C-alpha cells in the first residue's frame, strides 16, 4: 500500500511538473491573418500599435509566451503613451496589455501542444488525477478502522508549515498571480481544455475556463480524500457531496451550457455581495439586453440575496451556504481540509477578523450603492469619487488579491478559510443573521467537556470553540460556517450542530451541569 502511495505521488508530481513547465514553452507564430483578426475583434485603430506589431511580431517565430508577451505589451504601452501625448484619445487601446497578449497568444500557438491537446491533457490533468487518487485511495486500508484520523498532522512537514507547505504556498500564490494578472502565460493551459470547453459552450477555453475546470477536478479528487477520512461521519459525507454537486453543476456546467444557449453566463448560487459585480453597469446592461432569462436572473439575484439567503440562514445557519453550497467554501473544505488547523485562535485574530470582514462588507455595499447611483443617474462620479475607480480598486484588492491570491494561496500557512473568515462580505452579512436571528447553534453537551482543545485546534474559522464548550455554553458565533469538524473530533461527544428553538439558544453559564443543583440555580441566574 505504501508503495502504491509512493507511485501515486511520483505520478502526480510528474503531472504537476509538466503543468508547471507549460507556461514557459510552446511555439507561437503570429500570422498576418491572426493580426487582422485581433485588430477587428478588439476594434484597434492605433496605427502605431499595428505598425509596431508588424515590425516586431508578425511573421516571427517565438519560443514560449515569455518571449512573445513582452513584445506585445511594450508595443501596446508605447502606442498608448504616444496617443495620450498626442491627445488622440480615440486611438488608445483599452484592452489590458496582458489580456491582449493572451488573445494574441491563444490565436497563434502552434506545434506539439496545440496539435496534441488530448495527450497533453492526459500528461497534466490526467497524471495529476491518477497520481492523486493512487496516493489517496490506499488510505482506506492504511488509515485503519474508521474514526478520527488526525495522527501525525503536527509531525508531518506538509501539514505543519514545513518546507512542503511553503512550496505549496509559493505554487498557489504564483498560480493565482498568473491567473489574475498575467493570463497570457496561461495560454498553453487553455489548449489542454479546449476540447472540453468546445463541447460545453462551443467556444475555445479561456484562462477562467482552465480555472473552473481545475477547480472542479481538484475538489472532486480531494472529496475522495474527505470520503475516506471521514467515512465514520455521515454529516461530512453528505456535506461533501452537496458542496461538490453545487460546484460542478451550478458553478461550472450550467453557466457554460447557458453560454451555448446564447444566455448570459451566470452562476445561480453565487449571491451578491460575494458576486460583487452583479450590479456593475456592464452586467446590468447585459442582463437587461438578454430578454426573459436576463430579467429572471436579475430578479433571482436580488431575491437570492434579500430573501432566500437570510431565510435559509434563519432555519439552518449560514452553513447551508458557506459549507454546503459555496464554491469558495467547497475548495476550502476539500483542498483546504489538511490545513484547517492553521487558523489562529487568538483574541487578537478575532479582533482583526471583525474589522476586516465587516470593512469589506461596508466597502462592497458602498461600492454597489455608488454603482447603482451612477447607473440610474448616468453620472460617472458620486461625491467626487469616480465609480469606475472604486470598482477597479475593489476588483483588484478584494476580488483578486484577497479572495484569490491570499484566500487560497495562504491555505498551507494560515488555514483554509482565510478569505471566508477575514474577507468575504457575504459571510459577514450571513454572520449578522446567524448571530442575531437563527435557529442554528452548536450545542454544548452539559458538563462533558474536558477542555482538550481538539475542537479549537481544528476549527477552520479560528473560533475558540473550547472557550464556550468548557463553560457549558452553546457556540453562537457569526463566523461559524457549520463544517461540523469540531463535533467530529471531539473525543467526548460534547458538540452537536443543530437547529432548534430561539429560546435558550444563547445560554451563559457559570456553574456547569453535574454540580449541585441549588448552586447552579444560584450562580446561573438567567
Amino acid at each position: 500500500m505504501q508503495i502504491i502511495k509512493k507511485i501515486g505521488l511520483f505520478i502526480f508530481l510528474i503531472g504537476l511538473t509538466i503543468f508547471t513547465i507549460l507556461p514557459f514553452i510552446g511555439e507561437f507564430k503570429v500570422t498576418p491573418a491572426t493580426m487582422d483578426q485581433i485588430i477587428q475583434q478588439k476594434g484597434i485603430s492605433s496605427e502605431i500599435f499595428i505598425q509596431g506589431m508588424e515590425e516586431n511580431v508578425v511573421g516571427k517565430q517565438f519560443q514560449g509566451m515569455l518571449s512573445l508577451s513582452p513584445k506585445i505589451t511594450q508595443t501596446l504601452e508605447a502606442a498608448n503613451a504616444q496617443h495620450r501625448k498626442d491627445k488622440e484619445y480615440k486611438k488608445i487601446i483599452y484592452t489590458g496589455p496582458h489580456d491582449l497578449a493572451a488573445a494574441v497568444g491563444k490565436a497563434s500557438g502552434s506545434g506539439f501542444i496545440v496539435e496534441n491537446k488530448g495527450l497533453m491533457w492526459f500528461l497534466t490533468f490526467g497524471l495529476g488525477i491518477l497520481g492523486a487518487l493512487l496516493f489517496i485511495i490506499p488510505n482506506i486500508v492504511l488509515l485503519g478502522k474508521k474514526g478520527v484520523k488526525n495522527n501525525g498532522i503536527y509531525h508531518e512537514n506538509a501539514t505543519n508549515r514545513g518546507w512542503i507547505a511553503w512550496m505549496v504556498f509559493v505554487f498557489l500564490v504564483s498560480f493565482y498571480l498568473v491567473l489574475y494578472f498575467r493570463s497570457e502565460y496561461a495560454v498553453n493551459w487553455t489548449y489542454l481544455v479546449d476540447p472540453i470547453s468546445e463541447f460545453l459552450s462551443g467556444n475555445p477555453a479561456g484562462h477562467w475556463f482552465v480555472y473552473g475546470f481545475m477547480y472542479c477536478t481538484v475538489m472532486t479528487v480531494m472529496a475522495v480524500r474527505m470520503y475516506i477520512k471521514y467515512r465514520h461521519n455521515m454529516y461530512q459525507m453528505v456535506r461533501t457531496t452537496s458542496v461538490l454537486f453545487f460546484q460542478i453543476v451550478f458553478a461550472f456546467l450550467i453557466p457554460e451550457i447557458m453560454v451555448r444557449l446564447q444566455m448570459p453566463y451566470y452562476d445561480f448560487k453565487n449571491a451578491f455581495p460575494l458576486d460583487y459585480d452583479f450590479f456593475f453597469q456592464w452586467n446590468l446592461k447585459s442582463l437587461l439586453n438578454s430578454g426573459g432569462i436576463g430579467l429572471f436572473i436579475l430578479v433571482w439575484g436580488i431575491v437570492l440575496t434579500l430573501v432566500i439567503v437570510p431565510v435559509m440562514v434563519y432555519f439552518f445557519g449560514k452553513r447551508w451556504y458557506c459549507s454546503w453550497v459555496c464554491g469558495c467554501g467547497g475548495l476550502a473544505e476539500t483542498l483546504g481540509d489538511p490545513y484547517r488547523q492553521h487558523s489562529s485562535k487568538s483574541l487578537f485574530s478575532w479582533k482583526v477578523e471583525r474589522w476586516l470582514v465587516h470593512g469589506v462588507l461596508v466597502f462592497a455595499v458602498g461600492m454597489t450603492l455608488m454603482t447603482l447611483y451612477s447607473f440610474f443617474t448616468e453620472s460617472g462620479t458620486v461625491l467626487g469619487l469616480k465609480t469606475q475607480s472604486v470598482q477597479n480598486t475593489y476588483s483588484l484588492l478584494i476580488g483578486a488579491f484577497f479572495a484569490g491570491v491570499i484566500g487560497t494561496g495562504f491555505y498551507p500557512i494560515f488555514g483554509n478559510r482565510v478569505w471566508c473568515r477575514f474577507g468575504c462580505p457575504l459571510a459577514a452579512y450571513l454572520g449578522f443573521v446567524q448571530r442575531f436571528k437563527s435557529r442554528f447553534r452548536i450545542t454544548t453537551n452539559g458538563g462533558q467537556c474536558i477542555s482538550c482543545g481538539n475542537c479549537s485546534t481544528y476549527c477552520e474559522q479560528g473560533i475558540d470553540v473550547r472557550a464556550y464548550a468548557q463553560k457549558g455554553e452553546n457556540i453562537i458565533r457569526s463566523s461559524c460556517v457549520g463544517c461540523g469538524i469540531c463535533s467530529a473530533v471531539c473525543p467526548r461527544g460534547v458538540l452537536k450542530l443543530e437547529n432548534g428553538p430561539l429560546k435558550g439558544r444563547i445560554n451563559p453559564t457559570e456553574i456547569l451541569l453535574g454540580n449541585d443543583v441549588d448552586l447552579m440555580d444560584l450562580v446561573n441566574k438567567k
Partner: protein
Amino acid sequence: MEHIVIIGNGISGITAARHIRKLSDKKITIISAESDYFFSRTALMYVYMGHMKFEHTQPYENWFWKKNRLNLVNGYVTKVDTASKKVILKSSEEIGYDKLIIATGSKPNKFGWPGQDLKGVQGLYSKQDLELLQANAPNNEICKRAVIVGGGLIGIELAEMLRSRDIPVTFLVRENSFWNGVLPQGESQMINEHILEHHIDLKLDTNLKEIISDENGWANAVVTDKGETIQCTVVGLTAGVTPNIDFLKGSGIETGKGVKVNNFLETNIADVYAIGDCAEQHEAIGSRRPVEAVWYTGRMMGETLAQTICGNKRAYNPGHWFNSAKFLDIEYQTYGWVFSEKSKKDHEQHFHWRHPKEKICVTIAFHKDTKQFLGINTFGIRMRHEILDRWLTENRSIAYVMEFLKDANFDPEFYAEYEKAIVSQYNSQFGTNITPKKKSWKRIFSNI
C-alpha cells in the same frame, strides 16, 4: 487583602481561582512545578499523537493570567507550615497565605514491582511524563515494543498513543476482561475485541511480576505471573493513580489515601482546603468513591469551594454521576449508575443492546422491582447530558426512557439511529409494547 494560595494549576485549582476572581478581589497565587500555564491533562495524548501541539492544550492565552490578576509561581512546594500560614518552596522561597487550597492532583501508582524505577519505566500523568515518552518512544526503531501494565483508562490511552507511531504494544490487564470492575460484561467484551482490532497484544488475567534491566539500568523485558518474558524498550505503568500529597507529611494536615476533607472541602486545619484528585471525603457521597480522580469532579469542587471562600458557604454536593472516555475509536458516556457484575447490587437489573455489526452498544440499569431508571452507558452513541440528568432527577421508569430515547440522542445530524432496534429488543425481552416517540424540541428544551 486576603491572600489565597493554590498549590496546583490543574483543572481543580484553576477553576477555583477563576471563580474566586469572578466573585472577589482577593489576591490569588497559583503555584505549580509542572507547567507555567494551565493545560488540559486529558489532552496530553493528542500531543504525542500529533493531533495538537502542546500550546493547543492550554485553554487560556498567556495574557489571561495577568489580566485577571492570577499570580503564577513556578515552584515546587516542599512544606506547608500551617502554624505560621506559609508554604515553603524547593527554592526555599516562602509564600504566606490567608487561605490555602491544596489541588495537587495524583501520581501514577507503583505497587513495589521489582524494577519499577528503571529507566524506560514510566507512568502517563504529567507534562514531564509526556516529554519522557517522546524521548523514550519517538518511533518504532528506538522503541521496539512497549508493555503497558494496568487495564484502565490511562492504559488504553497509552496503548492508542504508541500504536499511532506503529510501536508494538503488549497490554497486561489484571482482570479477565478489560475494565470489568467498572463496565458490565457485554461492554467490556466489546472493548476487548476493539483492542485486538487495533493490533494491540492484549493479555488478560495477567499480572506484572518483575521488570528486567539491561546492563545500563534500562528496562529491557518484563516477566509476567504466567512466567512469560516479554522483550521491550518501554514499560508503561498505568495501574491507576494515587493522591499526590507526600509533601504534606508533618504538616499536621490529616491525610488518609488523600487529604481528608469534610463536605465543605475543609481539612482538619482552619483555612486549609483540598479539592480535586488529591481530596478524600471522610464519608463517600452517594455511590461515589471517597477519592474521585475525575476531571469533572475536580472542576465541580473548584466551583463549589470558590463560593465558600468568597463568603457563600457551600457543601460539595455533586449532582447525578456522569463521565465519559474514549476507547481507541469508541466514545463512551455514562449517566447515573451502571455497575459491573462485580459491584452491582441485587436490585440492579441491566438491559443490554449491541449492534449486530458495528462497535456500538448500550446498557441501561434499572431497579428490578420498581423499574426505576438508574443509569445508562453508551458506546458509540452520544447522549444528551441535560435530558438524562433530568430523567434521573425525575425518577423516570425504564419504560419512559425507552419511549423518549430519541430525545436523548446527541449524535451528529444524518447519523444512523438505533432507537428502533433498541426498543424493539427491549420489547421482545420484557414483553412490552413500547413505540419510541419522535424527537421533540419542545420536550428537550422544556425546562428553559
